[in-house]
């Protein structure tokens, strides 16, 4: 009797320990963001107004959307090194065609999303390394953007500008938008049955294939979603900056990877966390503002993002050390 009871209690105990470690792991992105916000408010209490938060998180929405796009690709164990160029192209299409001939603009953006799905199919069918294909595609997107808009300019459609300038009561718009995006992706990817299947392809593609799901369809769905969110990110960026430039979003590639990783996503195994990724993206967006308040030279802006990334991953390694 005791011999039977002992292992079960052990199992229970270890499951509790695992639960708490997972809880810690899930809480880490939120803790990081709060720590950073706390530091900023402590140094500069005047930042603690809706206006201050709006100012600091000005560019957060496009970064959050690009991070979501990256997360979709990461779910199927790939990596997208072209998302920055793609966001730039979307912004350029928005500032030219979408503004002048809306129908052509919408068609072009839809074609971009289809191209992304096609890219997913190519990578999947030929078993090409996604890093290399997307690196090549980053040239294509950038080139198309340069052809469309050789010099910075264009104009954002009026509705886009007024959408991004929307001031909801109580909550600053970037925060409201982040919450909506996080909930939307969380429900879609983590709470629906097809979402679980999509993540399953990241975890064990062979098992998913054997149980009758099409892995080509899953990959294409994820890449199409990445394209959709890339387009949204470009439009959001355009709405804020009101004009576009082919190079406007090139650093989003690295930012989106960093944001997703900060939020607890992993490169393999379909382990992703939409809510965490949104928090990670917000953290990176805030890191730049924090430097200004800390009076650190802007030379170190990129470096600070790297340092935060390293610090959080070191913490996570410390927290979940015993997991594997």
């Amino acid at each position, binding site marked *: 009797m005791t011999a039977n009871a002992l292992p079960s209690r052990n199992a229970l105990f270890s499951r509790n320990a695992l639960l708490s470690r997972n809880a810690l792991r899930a809480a880490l992105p939120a803790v990081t963001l709060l720590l950073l916000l706390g530091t900023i408010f402590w140094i500069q209490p005047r930042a603690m107004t809706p206006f201050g938060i709006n100012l600091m998180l000005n560019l957060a929405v496009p970064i959050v959307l690009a991070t979501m796009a990256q997360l979709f690709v990461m779910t199927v*164990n790939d*990596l997208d090194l072209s998302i920055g160029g793609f966001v730039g192209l979307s912004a350029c299409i928005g500032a030219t065609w979408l503004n002048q001939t809306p129908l052509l603009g919408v068609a072009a953006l839809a074609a971009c999303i289809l191209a992304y799905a096609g890219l997913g199919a*190519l990578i999947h069918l*030929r*078993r*090409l*390394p*996604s*890093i*290399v*294909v997307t*690196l*090549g*595609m*980053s*040239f*294509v997107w*950038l*080139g*198309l*953007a*340069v*052809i*469309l808009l*050789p010099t910075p300019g264009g104009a954002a459609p009026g509705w886009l500008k007024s959408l991004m300038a929307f001031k909801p009561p109580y909550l600053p718009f970037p925060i409201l938008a982040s919450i909506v995006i996080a909930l939307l992706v969380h429900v879609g990817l983590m709470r629906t049955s097809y979402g679980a299947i999509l993540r399953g392809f990241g975890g064990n*593609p062979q098992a998913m294939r054997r149980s009758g799901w099409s892995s080509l369809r899953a990959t294409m769905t994820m890449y199409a979603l990445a394209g959709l969110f890339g387009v949204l990110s470009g439009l959001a960026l355009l709405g804020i900056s009101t004009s576009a430039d082919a190079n406007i979003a090139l650093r989003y590639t*690295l930012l989106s*990877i*960093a944001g997703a*990783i900060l939020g607890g996503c*992993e*490169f*393999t195994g379909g382990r992703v966390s939409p809510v965490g990724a949104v928090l990670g993206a917000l953290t990176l967006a805030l890191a730049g503002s924090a430097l200004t308040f800390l009076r650190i*030279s802007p*030379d*170190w*802006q*990129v*470096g*600070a*993002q*790297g*340092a935060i*990334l*390293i610090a959080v*991953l*070191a913490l996570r*390694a410390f927290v979940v050390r015993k997991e594997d």
Partner: protein
Amino acid sequence: MTLSALLPTRKPWFWSFAAAFAAWGMLVLFLQGRGADEAVTASLAFAAFFVIVGLGQMMVITLGPGNIDLSIPATITLAAVVAMRVMGGEDANIPLGVLAALGCGVAVGLFNNVLIHLLRMPPIIATLSASFLIQSAAISYGRGLQVRPPQALQDFATARLYGVPVNAVCAVLLAAVVGVVLARTVYGRSVLAVGQNPRAAWLAGVRVGLVRSATYVLCAVFAALCGVLLAGFSGGASLDMGQEYLLASIAVVVIGGCSVAGGRANVPGIWGASLFLFLLVSMLNSMGLGAGFRLVLTGLIIIAVITLAGGEPAQR
């Protein structure tokens, strides 16, 4: 007799040289026969830089899935900035400057190792976040830097030996050394073994951790070497000089016929792919296309070559 009997199409390096030759042919066609030999010399000189970083990236990628060094561009910039600062334009300080740059490479490699091994970060993220820090260090250290490289370094980097650029000769020698190291030394065989099956290698007595660490340091040192040569070649250090080497270093490894899944290296292919990459860009330039079309075609052709050269039979 069929084509495949005449040509070594089965060799992994064949396609990269074939592509380079095709790009050269197109270039000569567009130039209408003028400057065909000059194109070869220029491509040797420029491809040498791709080869140097490509060899380092090849060693890292050979270590197996997930191993990649994204800090190469930042390391190139930092090494060049440090070398220019230390040399201060004086010929006498060249050895010191080169040592300082290589020291930067070793430091970057060790830092990457700390992140990968002690903090257990995936190499992509480790080298990515390291590159953020390195880039900031380079910007901060290089602010207002307007030192020209010492005359002797400039002369060396642009010199020709019997018409062949000296840096190309250096890159050929380096490639030969790497080839011998991979095929004939314990370290080189260990890199291949770890890439094929780390557990089997560990059971066979290979010190897996040490081999990985040494390879990341080696890659960073190659990037630093490239930075010094590039600064000498192009007349100084600039803050975005490393930028194009991220794609280049990965592309030459893949186009050159190395396995992205690791365990299979291919030194001649690196040279073929580097020549191809440079000739492709010159060809598109000579066609007189706009910048946008050049970028689009570069991207599409690289993807086409990778698709034709074949994906991986094994799971990624």
